[in-house]
């Protein structure tokens, strides 16, 4: 064989743009991709056929991307999604926006019509670059095949570093088909002069924080999802235990400290505990680690932490000072900042009195509900039962709404990265597909998907995926036959005018499960629930439980929109 022929064979082995994609995914260590084929990604699916990577075929692109989000949240790795052009890509939009607001690392490959027809309103053409520009951390369209390997590397780098987020890579069909005749794939290095996230904290700012903390009488730590992303739970625990500083969580920060830790005050915010919200109102130093002072946490900003000097640790400088005036800004990775703070060995603040007040509050004003046999199962009881049976060790996923808030309040997590919920965007239909991704990331974990009856119906086609993969996900539908949170707001703010929130008809969920060859149960009393939940959670098969709960239960305590955290309603004894 002569040299030129060898070279030619070698070049042929490099393959097409689609082959480059698959090779690059392998180089990036991608274990599995979530996707759905279509016209513009046919070359990619053909390359996948030649050179397989585990592919999870969702039954709708939205299911694929939520599964990738669940995977990313639980594993800490980047979730990868493939979808075709036009409708395939637009079906991903909700998931992309969700991942953006909740800072989840995703790389999304969308097919695109051939470069020769882009801009002609070709069949299945959509300007996905334009559509996703405001809801991605960054996006690319591959215009030259030479750039493709570098773009893939950059996409993974951007998605997974700094403040994580979704990155879209749009691949025209002719680029996937084009043969790549350059052998220098390994030389294509990342070139991102405008992207250098700061991870190490500034020393002077750390000194200021140390001073503020050691002089504090009523210090408080607000731990957000940044602590989980940075895998800094151990450092957080060490820090608060050493300095005896109480901790509260944002919704997404739950699990960053064990739910039963004696310094943990429960979740803060709109449906936070009395103790946590009161602590925010009364604290004199508030150290926010990796949270973004979202409006559902702060309530009316004019009344938020009125007495506190605010220290804000965040990897994204744009979050600091965005909503809450910040005395001591620290741009850093949560773990790096906590390690630096631990190194300082500063004088411990005297928090004995403060902790005593807080523990009195916890004792006198706990979360509460009125159980009553005649009313059937209360949703809070159902969540407590799930917690008791799984001992706080399960991975729990939810949609948005009442069941989400009850899960946040009553499922107390022993471990970090077990809580998968749609916080920022508040996406119905998120929880169930996310549970599939979570189970794939942690095959041995007990994954419980707590969903509402309405949200479940938005993505329940993914039951087919459970049927196919026999994943032991346990679906618990907290079925109140209505859009619970919408109904609660209509009750509270619209004089009980339940406009379109009571669902008149719903499928027989048990039969639905059976149609997918999944065991289904309906429970209507606590006795039934005890028995069925216990049996289901011990099973290695997927199970769906239609848990009928009382319809008119409300989530309390509640901070009404526009009011301050000090104005909670539905607190015991207040």
């Amino acid at each position, binding site marked *: 064989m002569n040299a030129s022929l060898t070279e030619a064979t070698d070049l042929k082995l490099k393959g097409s743009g689609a082959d480059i994609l698959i090779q690059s995914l392998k180089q990036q260590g991608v274990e599995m991709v979530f996707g759905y084929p279509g016209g513009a990604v046919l070359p990619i699916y053909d390359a996948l056929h030649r050179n397989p990577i585990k592919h999870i075929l969702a039954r709708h692109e939205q299911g694929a991307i939520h599964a990738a989000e669940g995977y990313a949240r639980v594993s800490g790795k980047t979730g990868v999604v493939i979808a075709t052009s036009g409708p395939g890509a637009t079906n991903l939009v909700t998931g992309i926006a969700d991942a953006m607001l909740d800072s989840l690392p995703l790389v999304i490959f969308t097919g695109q019509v051939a470069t020769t027809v882009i801009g002609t309103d070709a069949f299945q053409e959509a300007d996905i670059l334009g559509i996703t*520009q405001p809801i991605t951390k960054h996006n690319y*369209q591959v215009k030259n095949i030479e750039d493709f390997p570098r773009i893939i590397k950059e996409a993974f780098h951007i998605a997974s570093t700094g403040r994580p987020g979704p990155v879209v890579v749009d691949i025209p069909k002719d680029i996937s088909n084009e043969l790549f005749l350059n052998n220098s794939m390994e030389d294509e290095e990342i070139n*991102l002069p*405008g992207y250098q996230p700061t991870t190490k904290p500034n020393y002077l700012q750390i000194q200021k924080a140390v001073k503020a903390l050691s002089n504090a009488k009523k210090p408080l730590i607000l731990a957000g999802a940044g602590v989980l992303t940075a895998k800094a739970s151990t450092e957080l625990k060490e820090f608060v235990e050493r300095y005896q500083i109480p901790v509260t969580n944002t919704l997404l920060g739950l699990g960053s400290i064990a739910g039963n830790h004696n310094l943990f005050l429960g979740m803060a915010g709109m449906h936070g505990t009395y103790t946590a919200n009161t602590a925010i109102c009364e604290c004199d130093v508030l150290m926010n680690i990796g949270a973004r002072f979202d409006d559902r946490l702060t309530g009316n900003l004019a009344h938020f932490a009125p007495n506190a000097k605010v220290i804000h640790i965040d990897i994204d*400088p744009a979050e600091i*000072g965005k909503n809450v*005036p910040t005395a001591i800004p620290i741009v850093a990775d949560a773990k790096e900042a906590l390690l630096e703070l631990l190194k300082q060995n500063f004088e411990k603040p005297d928090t004995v009195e403060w902790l005593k007040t807080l523990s009195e509050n916890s004792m006198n004003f706990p979360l509460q509900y009125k159980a009553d046999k005649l009313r059937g199962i209360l949703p809070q009881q159902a969540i407590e039962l799930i917690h008791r049976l799984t001992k706080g060790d399960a991975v729990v996923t939810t949609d948005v709404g009442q069941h989400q808030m009850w899960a946040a309040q009553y499922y107390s997590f022993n471990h970090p990265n077990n809580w998968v919920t749609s916080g920022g965007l508040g996406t119905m239909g998120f929880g169930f597909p996310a549970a599939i991704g979570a189970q794939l990331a942690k095959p041995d974990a007990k994954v419980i998907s707590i969903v509402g009856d309405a949200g479940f119906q938005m993505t329940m086609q993914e039951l087919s995926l459970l049927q196919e993969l026999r994943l032991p996900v346990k679906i618990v539908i907290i079925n109140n036959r209505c859009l619970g949170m919408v109904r609660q707001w209509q009750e509270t703010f619209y004089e009980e005018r339940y406009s379109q929130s009571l669902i008149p008809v719903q499928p027989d969920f048990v039969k639905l499960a059976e149609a997918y060859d999944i065991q289904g149960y309906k429970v209507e009393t606590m006795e039934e629930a005890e028995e069925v939940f216990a049996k289901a959670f011990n099973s290695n098969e997927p199970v769906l439980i239609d848990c009928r709960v009382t319809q008119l239960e409300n989530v309390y305590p509640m901070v009404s929109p526009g009011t301050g955290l000090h104005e909670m309603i539905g607190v015991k004894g207040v």
Partner: protein
Amino acid sequence: MKRIITTTVINQSGVLNRVTGLLMKRQFNIESISVGHTEQPGMSKMTFVVNVEDKEKLEQLLKQLQKQIDVIKVNDITDKAVVMRELALIKVVTPPSVRNEIYSIVEPFRATVVDMSKNVTTFQVTGDPEKIEAFIDLVKPYGIKELTRTGVSAFVRETQKPYTAQLSIL
């Protein structure tokens, strides 16, 4: 308050859309924007004038711009000594009877005639926005047929004198 912000960006398609989209998403109002190549290949410079409510909003704007992957550098140069130029093309109704009068107005502004027809003259005027405003005000009574402005382009001066007052005209 009006701020002049310059950004150095990587010159690739979509970057203008990204920056203006960001401003729209965060509810900032762009008064003018100008974009062009720089001395570095592959880099462009954008200069825009925006109206922001307060210091906090301004800080947020600068940080959000800085966060964009394609944005290399962001500067608010409003309070610096700057060279600021804008170009305007203005078609003014100029029948022969008023031509001399208009020319005498135009002269101190060092505006130039770039096109002329029987009754209409197109003037080109460059300077900072205030100068252009003043010019427009003066020729307005004669009748402006059409007007177009490029938006501000600006540089920080090499020597910074903290309290140099900007001349409003010329």
